[in-house]
């Protein structure tokens, strides 16, 4: 298949007269398909390089911008901004199903810094009445979780969590209030009562 079996088809294949430590060499023609493969890659390469280097094709940066614009256009409006989403969260407060779902999100994403029961650790205690960012409103909780607090090392979650996961984790965190878990971290920030 890959041979153009020259030896049998064509008696002219020459056994070259030289010899190295007993090794002889035939002088078969280059396999035709191999030569074409080589030409094809060269033609493609010249076309490709010319196309991109002459500026007809998108640069990798431009390609990225196009993809990101498309992805951006898909995104529903950020959770933190919409009034409706805050009211949707408020409506779900205290609902056991939401708390249960929210606990799963919390255990995946929040536990590392805020502790298994919200007692705090790397991050602040979530069960007390003290606030580093915000003043005890659900809106504040939404904003902190959505946008993060860069200077404190709290990452933004708006782009990571789905709308449902986001709602449920807020509901779950709210449900932790006043649970006084063991090993609670000392209060940080200002004291504010929760205002739902």
């Amino acid at each position, binding site marked *: 298949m890959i041979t153009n079996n020259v030896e049998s088809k064509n008696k002219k294949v020459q056994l070259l007269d030289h010899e190295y430590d007993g*090794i002889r060499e035939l002088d078969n023609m280059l396999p035709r398909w191999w030569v074409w493969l080589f030409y094809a890659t060269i033609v493609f390469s010249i076309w490709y390089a010319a196309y991109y280097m002459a500026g007809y094709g998108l640069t*990798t940066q431009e390609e990225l911008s196009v993809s990101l614009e498309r992805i951006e256009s898909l995104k529903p409006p950020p959770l933190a901004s919409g009034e409706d989403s805050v009211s949707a969260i408020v409506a779900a407060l205290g609902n056991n199903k939401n708390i249960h779902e929210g606990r799963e999100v919390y255990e995946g994403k929040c536990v590392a*810094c805020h502790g298994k029961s919200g007692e705090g650790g790397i991050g602040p205690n979530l069960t007390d009445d003290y606030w580093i960012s915000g003043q005890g409103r659900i809106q504040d909780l939404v904003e902190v979780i959505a946008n993060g607090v860069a200077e404190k090392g709290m990452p933004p979650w708006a782009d990571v969590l789905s709308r449902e996961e986001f709602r449920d984790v807020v509901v779950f965190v709210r449900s932790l209030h006043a649970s006084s878990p063991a090993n609670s971290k000392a209060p940080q920030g200002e004291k504010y009562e929760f205002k739902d």
Partner: protein
Amino acid sequence: MSNSAPSKTVETFMYDDDIVKKFTIATLVWGGIAFLVGIIAALQLASWQLNFGTSWFTFGRLRPLHTNAAIFAFGGNAIFAGIYYSTQRLCKARLFNDTLSKIHFWGWQLIIVAAAVTLPLGLTQSKEYAELEWPIDIAITVIWVVFAVNFFGTLYRRRERHMYVAIWFYIATIITVAVLHIVNSIEIPVAWFQSYPVYAGVQDALVQWWYGHNAVAFFLTTPFLGLMYYFLPKAVNRPVYSYRLSIVHFWSLVFIYIWAGPHHLLYTALPDWAQTLGMVFSIMLWAPSWGGMINGLLTLRGSWDKVRTDPVLKFMVVALTFYGMATFEGPLLSIKSVSAVGHYTDWIIAHVHGGTLGWNGFLTFGMIYYLIPKLYRTELHSVRLANVHFWIGTVGMLMYLLAMYTSGFTQSMMLRAIDPISGKLVYPDFVETVVRIIPLYWVRAIGGVLYLIGFLVMCWNIFKTCRLAPKHLEAEVYRASKMTEESNEPKTAWHRRLEGLMPTFSVLVLVSILIGSVIEILPTLVAHTYTPANSGVVPYTALELAGRDLYVREGCYNCHSQMIRTLPEDVLRYGKASLPEDSMYDRPFQWGSKRTGPDLARIGGKYPDLWHYRHMLDPRSVVQNSIMPAYDWLFDKKTNFAILERKLEVMQSLGVPYTDEDVRNAAHAARAEAEIIAAGLTGDSPIKGLADREIIALIAYIQRLGKNSEKSEGKK
């Protein structure tokens, strides 16, 4: 023995086969170690506990030991054995100088021992396959020159006018490896086993992957092709298929290969034109690479029955097949959109091991099964055991490769998955994708163990064969006439004539590899785009620099990249695509080549200091299911503040804009910065004198990552 010409003076001579034996034994010894360390590293990925909390035994330090041992110790000794054996016979001349041969052998073994000691100690430049520090770099250069003198001296004294194709490949190897090693290793010493490269960031990346890719080309491809061209026709006793194919594929391979390095840097901060060149030259490399496979496999025409029975040929056929697969896959992976999927994943690990286990490993095994009975003038102890080796090795290799292809593809698909409705990453936690592929890491390790078992069977077989050797081996005496002085061959074809002109041939090879090197690398080296002027980016603080050197020492780059590619899945996960200024002070650059963990290019400021403190102490306390080892010793060892002045001084001499004041004040400033970071952690840390500990310097560095382009944009 001689070829005709009765009138000329006939000389008698003997070959130095003792040196061949030495290199062959060394191949076996280091091969076993390279494979064993590979298996340990593989198991450490499957189970983090196997890092044992010991600094010198962690994956980040062992993985470079594995790669260096496999390439330069196992591969290197195999090449030297095969080159020395075949060159003498192809030239009808004893090696140039027995003392040089011995210096070459023992020097190379000492270099390997030095590597095996320094790499686990964390003494590394972190440039892949060029990790060894400057004193060892110098030793490598010296020994390589010894090798070159010995080799070219032998050619000079040859009794065969024309150089056979194997010799061409050896010439290309010796010349190009010298150029690659010297250019990539230009560095300024800071201490006995530490140095900073003269290139920074994008420039360093380009030079390193020009080197890294061509280490594969000229250390693992051309010398082995040369060996194939000698040992395969010898073993099968058939003429080579096509002399003209040898000529065409040799020159095209040598000329094109050198350009292909930037395919390791697709979608990075490397300029687009260089990426494009890297891609198209890789594609054009397909046919030249296959030329060698075709010439090998077609040489077997009419003799395939021998492949069934002769283990030497079995190994060589599989080697050539894997060579063909790897050199098809290489161009494929160099296509930008394919690289986007494969790069940074286990797909690359699969690709590399197809080449090394299949091509280099099996060709070496075939060569050794051929060589040992010849060298000891006896028969192979057991053909059956050789067949057992062949099958265990093949099965192990297939397990390894299937596991890694599956793992690479699975993880890549997960990391790239973007929800078509919300536009969010489907698997935003990197560790989710890691958990999925752990079972495949076990399969890979088992495959590796099988490969090692097969190898040990071979060692036993070789040992028994050597014992069969006649007690007193008299060196055989050969006779050949001297080469005629006159090099004028008016009626011969031009290439045939060239084969008789060793110096001209070598210079042409040098020119061939320099063309691509200069065109691709020089513009970037002289461009002002990558220099500090006007960027508004301040260099690392002394403490950050100290932390950076710890990041290098621990080999973090083996698992974490610092390069957010211009791909949506990278940008959504890690932040804005990396720019040249992000790594403009990075000597050496830390872009990495594999993401076993997430990218760290913009990790700075993402988490609080305490997060990093706990993470380095016990990764699983903050990232469930993490497979990263703990780095306890960073909490005990003290930062070397005293050396910082010297470090800044070297950086300053390389053009980093530190003032003389910065340099003089380095240790003091670093201490002050450390105190501030430590003060923020004291409430949560039982350690007294925390500011002095290495962990603080490392945190300072990590928190800096990704801040450069913020500053440069602020200025714009």
